[in-house]
């Protein structure tokens, strides 16, 4: 959660080029031009992360990660038992939960953001259908930005197409 901030004084400088004539041989075809360089220096921005709180950690016995097929947001049958446990637990002792949707690295990043959200919403809808108050559930997509497994292969991709309940 640590966020740092670097500020550097490196700066490109403003200048103006001089427009002057060039010595020329009359036979020579010639253009007399010059170019200005504008100030296009780059400064570093600052991130304020005071708004970020680490989520409270609770011990859960049921699975908290649910997997999906490529470009799909359909819950798999094997996710059902754990999700029923979570819905019972959330109804008995309500608490705020976060559903983080993820995609594998294939495909485009913003489309994968949408896909991650769609997956997290599929889990949310299941929980709400079981009676969990929608107000307890926050959905957030990380797209392909937070891989659980590294590597460009089917195993890694399968582990990354997921929703994490936190």
């Amino acid at each position: 959660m640590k966020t740092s901030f670097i500020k550097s004084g490196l700066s490109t400088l403003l200048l103006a080029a001089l427009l002057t004539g060039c010595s020329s041989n009359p036979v020579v075809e010639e253009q007399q031009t010059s170019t200005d360089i504008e100030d296009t220096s780059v400064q570093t921005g600052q991130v304020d992360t005071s708004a970020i709180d680490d989520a409270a950690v609770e011990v859960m016995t049921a699975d908290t990660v649910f997997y999906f097929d490529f470009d799909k947001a359909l819950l798999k049958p094997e996710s059902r038992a754990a999700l029923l446990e979570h819905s019972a637990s959330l109804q008995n002792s309500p608490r705020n939960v976060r559903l983080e949707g993820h995609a594998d690295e294939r495909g485009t990043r913003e489309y994968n953001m949408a896909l991650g959200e769609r997956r997290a919403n599929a889990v949310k809808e299941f929980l709400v259908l079981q009676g969990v108050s929608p107000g307890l559930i926050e959905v957030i997509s990380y797209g392909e930005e937070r891989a659980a497994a590294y590597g460009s292969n089917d195993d890694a991709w399968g582990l990354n197409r997921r929703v994490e309940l936190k």
Partner: protein
Amino acid sequence: MTVRIAKSSILSMLPVKLLVAVLLAVASPSYGELVIRVTQGNDQPTKIAIAPIAMGGIQSSEDISAIVEADLARSGLFAPMERRDMLAFPSSASEVYYRDWRLLGAEYLVAGNMRAISEGRYQIEFSLLNVSGQKTVLTHKVSGTSSQMRDLAHLISDKVYEEITGIRGAFSTRLAYVTATRINDVYTYRLNVADADGAREKLVLESGEPIMSPAWSANGKELAYVSFETGRPAIFRQNLVTAQREQLTNFTGLNGAPSWSPDGKKMALVLSKDGNPELYLLDLQTKKFSRLTRHFAIDTEPTWMPDGKHLLFTSDRGGTPQIYKLNIASKATERLTFSGNYNARPSLAPDGRTMAMVHRQRDTFHIASFDLKTGRMIELTETRLDESPTVAPNGAMLMYATKQGDRGVLAAVSLDAGVRYVLPSSSGDVREPAWSPFLR
């Protein structure tokens, strides 16, 4: 800051130079422009000789002619002559013996010299000579400070390239991109800006939470991007000169895919506050949002057409991700791509006709170009997991993100697929390049 440094003496310039050296040593030990590998070039590149600029005793850490050579070589359209093969180093047109250069096979020659024009400011006068025609086709002067030697070199490249090819040079442009590292489960995301050749990398923003989707403003002075620093995705804009930043969106759900309008007054973006991802238009003056799409499918990745009246975007409303065109006034949409089951992330060339996109072919993801008039598609890349195409403002090359081993790197390909090069990463995963507009 600019004025203070510009007015300072040579002595007080020293820390700036040191900082440059430190940044280069730390951030890019392999020094971008010298290690770019041109993996494929034009069949018959123009043979050009860039004589070393006569420095007139002026000390500079930059080899200006070498930078020009690297620029022109990277375009794939030129084959610069090796310096050791040159018989003479003329500093101006009057010192040129055309016969020598003709015998060496050079079609063009660049000769120039530098002189100090005031305290800390230098001018390069250079000429481009047509060897067979035995004439000077261009004489030009560029000037700057000792910290701007690379800028001056790129300006020379721009002029030479445009004079010979008829296409405006884009060597003085910049790239924005995101790097990500993960060390012991600590993530660091960085938004960087560098010269188009990868040199002079500069940190724009660093965060432990994801940074995504950098997009240039039309004037090249600002970037919009998505940052998760609040714990959720939000769109920010940031002025590159002042580092002043502003959070533009803070809605429940997705806040993503910002795209600045050609007139700089509006931004197309994606919000899912209504339940699923839709395109919105943000008026940057009034801060009012207006909804553009209304569909239960995913609508995302908007990009402006040069007319400022249409957007291209990705939608899976037809069952798979495909590219659509939206008329902003009438809200009418039209599907453009039909070939394949995954076409996404449109990026338009400045001609408004050639579109680059991510295209899935037999389970791999390539960059393809798509002609909006004829519907003809050309696969430009052969690697897999290629994404985030961004076309140079002169339309000659496009940059994209790909993988080398398990590492994300940036690569470039010409829009006719004839020229390719790779920008090796200095550290971590490099991704999401965004090519700046012309900056001057």
